[in-house]
C-alpha cells in the first residue's frame, strides 16, 4: 500500500496536475471566485487541442533521441485550409473534410520519414525542410481563402453541455485509446522499445524502420486532424493556426513526464501539462500581465521542468 502510494507520488505527471490546480486556485483567488467555473471549462476546452498535437509529438519524441517533428505547425495550417475547402461550409461534408485533413497530414508525415530515411538526415532538419515546403503549399493553396466552417462543425467543436466542452470529452476518450495503443498494442510497445534502445529493438526482431515510418505518419495524421478541429473552433482556417503549437507541443510532452530521451511516453501527463499551461496563461491574463511576462514565465517553466527532470552528468 505504502509502496504503491510512493509509486504514485513519484510519477512526474502528477505534478503537472497539481500545478494546474494550484494555478487555477491562484487565479480564482485573485478574481474573488468570480468566473471560476468558466475559467475551468474554457481551459479544458483549449487544453484538448494541445493534447492532440502533444500526442503527435509524444509518439515521435518517444522514438528516441533526435526524433522531433517540427513540421506540425505548417501541417496544421495546411490541414485547416484543406478541411475548410473540402467542407465548403456544408455540414454534409464534415466527415469528408476531416478525412481530407487527416490524409494531408499523413502524407506530410510519410514525406518526413522518407526524407529522414533516404537523405539520412536528422529528423529535426528533415521535418524543418518539409515544414518550409508545406508552409508554401499552404500559402499558395489557401490564398484568399476565407471559408467559414460548416455551422454544425463549428458548434461541435465549441459546444458545452453543463459547462463541459463536448470536444474535451471526446479527446479524453481519444486519450484513453492512445493509452491503450501505447501500452497494449504491438505498435506502441515497439515504439517504446525503439526509443529505449534501437539496436536492442532490432535484435529483438522488431521491424524498426516500419515502426518509424508508421510513427511519423501517425504524428502527421494527428497534426492534420487537430488543424481541422482548430479551424472549427476558431471559425475559419488560417495558416498561422498552428504556429504557437510548435513550442506548445514539445512543452506539454516534456512537462507531462514523457522522456525527452525517448522510450517512455505518458498520455495522462499530456493532459496535466496542457491544463497547466492553459491555466498558467489564464492566470497571467487575469492578473492582467503583458504578453511579454506570459512568454517569459512559460519559457522559465519549461527550463525549470527539464532541469529538474535531467540527471547530473555521470562522472567516469
Amino acid at each position, binding site marked *: 500500500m505504502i509502496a504503491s502510494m510512493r509509486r504514485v507520488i513519484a510519477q512526474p505527471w502528477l505534478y503537472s496536475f497539481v500545478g494546474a490546480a494550484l494555478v487555477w486556485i491562484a487565479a480564482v483567488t485573485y478574481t474573488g471566485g468570480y468566473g471560476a467555473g468558466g475559467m475551468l471549462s474554457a481551459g479544458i476546452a483549449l487544453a484538448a487541442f494541445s493534447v492532440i498535437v502533444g500526442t503527435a509529438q509524444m509518439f515521435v519524441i518517444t522514438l528516441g533521441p533526435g526524433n522531433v517533428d517540427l513540421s506540425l505547425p505548417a501541417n496544421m495550417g495546411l490541414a485547416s485550409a484543406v478541411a475548410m475547402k473540402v467542407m465548403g461550409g456544408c455540414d454534409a461534408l464534415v466527415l469528408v473534410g476531416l478525412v481530407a485533413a487527416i490524409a494531408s497530414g499523413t502524407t506530410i508525415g510519410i514525406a518526413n520519414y522518407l526524407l529522414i530515411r533516404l537523405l539520412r538526415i536528422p529528423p529535426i532538419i528533415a521535418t524543418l525542410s518539409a515544414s518550409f515546403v508545406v508552409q508554401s503549399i499552404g500559402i499558395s493553396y489557401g490564398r484568399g481563402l476565407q471559408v467559414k466552417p460548416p455551422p454544425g462543425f463549428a458548434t461541435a467543436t465549441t459546444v458545452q453541455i453543463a459547462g463541459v466542452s463536448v470536444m474535451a470529452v471526446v479527446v479524453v476518450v481519444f486519450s484513453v485509446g492512445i493509452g*491503450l495503443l501505447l501500452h*497494449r*498494442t*504491438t505498435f506502441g*510497445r*515497439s515504439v*517504446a*522499445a525503439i526509443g*529505449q*534502445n534501437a*539496436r*536492442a*529493438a532490432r*535484435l*529483438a*526482431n*522488431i521491424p524498426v524502420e516500419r515502426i518509424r515510418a508508421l510513427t511519423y505518419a501517425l504524428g502527421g495524421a494527428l497534426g492534420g486532424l487537430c488543424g481541422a478541429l482548430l479551424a472549427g473552433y476558431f471559425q475559419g482556417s488560417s495558416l498561422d493556426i498552428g504556429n504557437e503549437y510548435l513550442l506548445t507541443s514539445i512543452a506539454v510532452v516534456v512537462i507531462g513526464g514523457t*522522456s525527452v530521451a525517448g*522510450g*517512455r511516453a505518458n498520455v495522462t501527463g499530456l493532459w496535466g501539462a496542457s491544463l497547466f499551461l492553459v491555466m498558467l496563461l489564464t492566470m497571467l491574463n487575469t492578473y492582467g500581465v503583458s504578453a511579454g511576462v506570459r512568454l517569459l514565465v512559460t519559457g522559465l517553466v519549461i527550463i525549470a521542468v527539464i532541469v529538474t527532470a535531467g540527471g547530473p552528468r555521470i562522472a567516469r
Partner: protein
Amino acid sequence: MRPERVMSQHSVVIELTGTEKSFGAVRALAGVDLAVAMHECVGLIGHNGAGKSTLMHVLAGTLTPDKATVAVKGETLKRYGLVAAHRLGIRCVFQELSLCPNLTVAENARILHPALRGFGWRRRAGELIISKLDEIFPDHRIAADAIVGDLPIGKRQMIEIARAFTVTTAPVNLVILDEPTSSLDGHTASQLFAFLRRSVKAGMSCILISHMLREILSTTDRVVVMRDGRVVTAGPTSSFDRNKLVVAMGGAEHHGTQADTPAPLAAAAAASEAPITVRMKPKGQHDGRELLARAGEIVGLAGLAGHGQTDLLLAVFDAGSGRAKKGAVADRIALVAGDRQTDGVFPLWSIAENIGVRSLARFRKGVLLSVEAEDALAARWKERIKIRTPDMRNPILSLSGGNQQKALFARALGSDATTVLMDDPMRGVDIGTKLDVYDLIQEEAQGGRTFLWYTTEMDELRHCDRVYVFRNGSIVAELARHEVSEERVIAASFAEAA
C-alpha cells in the same frame, strides 16, 4: 639478453600493488601487483576478460581503482589520476582510437600538447607528429593536414601510436600499447617493434598487450600473464616459449574441474541426419569453408574476441529476419545479446515486458495485447530459468547482471524461435546463473532447437556438439565434440601465418 635485472627502487618507473576493481558484480581486478622498471618492455597477455585493459586504464589514470597503492621511485602517491600520470610521462595507446576524426593529423597532435599554441602552432604540431611518424614508420605517407576521419584505420593507428611518443613539455617515460598491431600490417608492425626496442634501449619503458604471442616473445623483456583478474605467472621472456604461454593463459589447473556434460550419443547421431537450419559463410572466408548447423545441434563459435564471431551471428540474424539474402537460414530466429546494455535490455521496462517483447504477436487477443498472457509467460520463465525477484513487474534494472541475462535468455527461449543465436551471453555472469542456463540449453536443444553459441569461455565449449574456431573474420578450425580441448582452441586461435 640483458643480465638479470635488479629491481632497485630507483629503476622502477611505477609500481602498482593490490589493485582491485569491480564493475557491479564482475571483479575485473582481484588484487594485481605490477611494477615496470626503466629500460624495460613488459609483455602483458591473457585471454579476453582477464583484466588487462582495466589494469592499463588504472595505470593511465583514466580509471580509478577501488583499491590500490601507487608508488613512484619508492614513494607512495596519495592521489593518482590523469594529471599525475601525465606528469610522470605515462602515455597510453588505447584500443578504441582516441583521435578526433574531424580534425587534421596536426590538430590531433595539438590536442595532446597544451604547449603547441601561439603563432605557427600548426606548423610546429605538424612537424612534431610527422617527424615522429618518420622515425617510427619511415614510409608512412601521411600528410600533416589530412583529416583523420578520411584515413584508413591502419594509418589512424599509426598516428595514434606516434602521437603517444611525441614530446613537448611533459616527458614520456612509459608507453602502454594495447593491441597496437590489431590494425597494422606485418611491415608496419615490425617497424613499430624495432622502434620499441630502440626506445627501450634509450631509457624508455613500455607495456605491450598483444594476442600475437610471437610479438610478445620477440619484443619484450618480461612477460606477465593474467587470468581472471589476477597475475598468474610472470618472468623473463627468455624463460617462456609459445607453448608455455598458451598453457599459462589457459590455466591448466582448471582442467577437469568442470565435469563434461555427458552427451546423449543417440541425440548426436540423430543430429547428423537432422535438417540443416543454418548455412552461412563468414564474410572474410576465402577457402570455401562454411558454418553449418542442424536442428537440435549446439554449435560453438570460439576464438579470440572480435575475430568475426559476432559479425557472423548478425549475418545469420539478418538472413533469418529477411533483411539479407546471403546464406540459408531456417525461419524464426532469436538472439541472446552478450552486451546487455547496448544490445539487450530495455532499461525503462519491467522484467515481464523485457521477456515478452519478442513474443508480442502471441499475446494478441483481438486488437490488444493480453497482459495476462504476458504475465503467464514471465511467470513460466521465472520458474524455469530461476529469475530471482519478488515480482516480475519490477523494473529490469532492479535485477543483478546475471538475472538480467537470464531475462534475455527467457526472451529468446520463450519465443517461437527455432534457432537461437547467443553472442557471448555469459560475459561477466556469475557461476550460479551459468549452471542454471547450461542445463536449459541442453534441454531445449534436445527439443529440436538449434543453438549458435559464440563464447569466449573455454568451459562453455564443452557443451557444444561442434565448435568452429575463428580468426581474423574466418573459420580456421572445426572441432567435433570429442576434439574440443582448451589447448586445441587456443592453438587454433593463436595460429599465426608463417
